[in-house]
């Protein structure tokens, strides 16, 4: 059609009412979209603030403990040891319970039941074995109070409530001791250095934290090299065919498998088939490695794929072998991405509970694990166990443990950001 015969269109009127309405509509939808985005952001921020405030307000007191001052007379007769002995073995096995009972009766009075923690005798033993010269002498010692006294000191117990877990007698004693100045509330070193206990005032998080560290160590040791090697092989060496397609789909599916299934797999393979020990960080680490592996393979492949092919051409062009291309050029450039993916996978493993329940890491473990084969528990499982406990004192311990877990997670994310910035190269 030539221009001469084309029907003439009326010139566009940019100021017409319809055009103006269209402009107004456009501005309105723009404004609405921005508002919706802001609202979503504000909501997310609100949830986060609520979480942090709620955990912080409950948990921070978990890092504190109330102690009672006792005047202890280290009488060899009460302890049942020969006077003047310095032998550690003898001092270790002395009758400290009796010594504690005597000291409590002497320092606090006849109504002292439920004031001093049952585990306080450990303090007496530690004091004497550290300084055997105390035998036959008197000493003032601070020993842990019961959880009831601790809660009273922190003001968590509602004295006016009709139903409360703390008896009137303990409240009376607490007020008396408080007035006498033999109570103090300070940093709870037990919480930061010991393992689980049935008494809230003696329970610690270090056992679970160390269990987590040991477990993650095994996980990293297995899943990082295996995952990176698998990613390199799939990206750089494997030819694309039906077989590698199936492998790729399987890995993607594996990353989406619920974690409890991996727990069952670990139970069947590591415990039942290989007969490894239950509740051990070694088994937990292996199970979590199975779960983390697909995440590392996928993020590793993405990172390797994002290295420009021109770099490979350049290296091959000067006569680098495929292995040299990978280790001199591709891997250094892909490292930030691989490390970020790995740390995200590890952070997920750190917070994982379900698969570890299956392989027995929910056991009550009162000792800090010293090796990979010792019974242990991990932070999230410890939180789960404490949150299940009926004793009032464990509420703040649960929140305190959550704070510890969150600090660990933030540390790992911080490391991820640091590594990404350190190794990132631009071109």
């Amino acid at each position, binding site marked *: 059609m030539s221009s001469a015969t084309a029907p003439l269109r009326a010139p566009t009127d940019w100021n017409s009412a319809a055009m103006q309405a269209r402009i107004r509509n456009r501005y309105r939808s723009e404004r609405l979209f921005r508002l919706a985005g802001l609202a979503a952001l504000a909501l997310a921020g609100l949830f986060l603030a609520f979480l942090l405030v709620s955990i912080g307000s409950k948990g921070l007191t978990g890092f504190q403990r109330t102690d009672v001052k006792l005047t202890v007379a280290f009488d060899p007769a009460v302890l049942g040891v020969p006077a003047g002995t310095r032998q550690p073995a003898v001092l270790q096995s002395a009758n400290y319970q009796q010594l504690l009972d005597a000291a409590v009766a002497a320092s606090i009075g006849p109504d002292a039941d439920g004031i001093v923690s049952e585990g306080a005798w450990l303090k007496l033993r530690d004091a004497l074995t550290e300084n055997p010269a105390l035998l036959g002498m008197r000493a003032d010692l601070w020993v842990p109070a019961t959880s009831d006294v601790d809660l009273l000191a922190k003001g968590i117990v509602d004295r006016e409530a009709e139903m409360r877990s703390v008896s009137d007698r303990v409240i009376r004693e607490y007020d008396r001791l408080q007035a006498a100045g033999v109570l103090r509330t300070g940093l709870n070193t037990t919480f930061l250095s010991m393992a689980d206990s049935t008494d809230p005032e003696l329970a610690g998080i270090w056992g679970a934290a160390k269990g987590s560290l040991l477990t993650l160590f095994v996980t990293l040791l297995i899943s990082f090299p295996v995952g990176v090697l698998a990613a390199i092989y799939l990206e750089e060496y494997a030819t694309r065919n039906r077989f590698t397609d199936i492998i790729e789909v399987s890995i993607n599916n594996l990353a989406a498998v619920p974690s409890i299934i991996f727990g069952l797999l670990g139970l069947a393979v590591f415990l039942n088939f290989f007969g490894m020990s239950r509740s051990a960080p070694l088994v937990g680490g292996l199970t979590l490695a199975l779960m983390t592996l697909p995440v590392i393979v996928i993020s590793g492949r993405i990172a390797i794929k994002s290295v420009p092919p*021109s770099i490979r051409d*350049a290296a091959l062009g*000067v*006569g680098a072998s495929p292995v040299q291309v990978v280790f*001199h*050029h591709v891997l250094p450039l892909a490292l930030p991405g691989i490390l970020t993916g790995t740390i995200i996978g590890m952070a997920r493993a750190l917070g994982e509970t379900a698969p570890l329940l299956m392989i027995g890491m929910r056991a009550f473990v009162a000792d800090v694990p010293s090796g990979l084969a010792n019974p242990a528990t991990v932070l999230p499982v410890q939180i789960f166990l404490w949150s299940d406990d009926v004793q009032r004192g464990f509420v703040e311990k649960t929140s305190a443990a959550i704070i510890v877990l969150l600090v660990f997670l933030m540390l790992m994310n911080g490391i991820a950001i640091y590594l990404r910035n350190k190794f990132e*190269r631009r071109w």
Partner: protein
Amino acid sequence: MALSAPVSAASSQHATPDATVKMTARNVNVFYSGKQAVKDVSIDIGQENVTAFIGPSGCGKSTFLRCLNRMNDTIDGAKVTGDIAIDGEDIYGAQMDVVQLRARVGMVFQKPNPFPKSIYENVAYGPRIHGLARSKVDLDEIVTTSLQRAGLWDEVKDRLADSGTALSGGQQQRLCIARAIAVDPEVVLMDEPASALDPIATARIEELIDDLRGRYAIVIVTHNMQQAARVSQKTAFFHLGTLVEYGDTSDIFTNPRETRTKDYITGRYG
């Protein structure tokens, strides 16, 4: 593989016989996943010459170039048949080590692709992995000479530790040339080395190619016919995967035998 075979029949009978043939190709076919990209190409590459491959896009000239140092091996589904030899040695033969071949037949790519490392490391990488330098002093010497030959030395001698990627496009391409010649290759393949550069940088690359002639056998793929006319002594015209005409550059541009060649160089198509 016939080493001393005279320059192949139909395609190059008018070319001046070359006393020093560096590479020979006979009946080369290339298939990408079954689709034929290069059809029955036979050609001799001279030692002393710059040989230009010209032709419209998709005519197989770059594909054929990549056969000469087996870079096609890295592409899934690529299959090469026929014979290609360097100094009479079959490069697709079982005796040939592909890593060594690529050191002997260096390559410069279309887009400058320096490693994201220092200028020094870019040039030193090849000699280092092939163990060409006996000492640090030796390696410094190789890097200096290579950068001088690539005409980049004066511009970068004070900042060898800077990243190679911080250079301008033209400087990057000359760095890539320095990197290629640092391993002392016998042949240098250049795949449209100036197509991503501005006219001034292009002129420098062309001067450089002229300077390097004689020391290395050079094969250059180009879209730019003036460039082919300026830098090369021999020109091969490819069309639809076949080698249409091969001969002295002056003959191809002034007196082409084939109508297709004539149509292309006069701008009738392409």
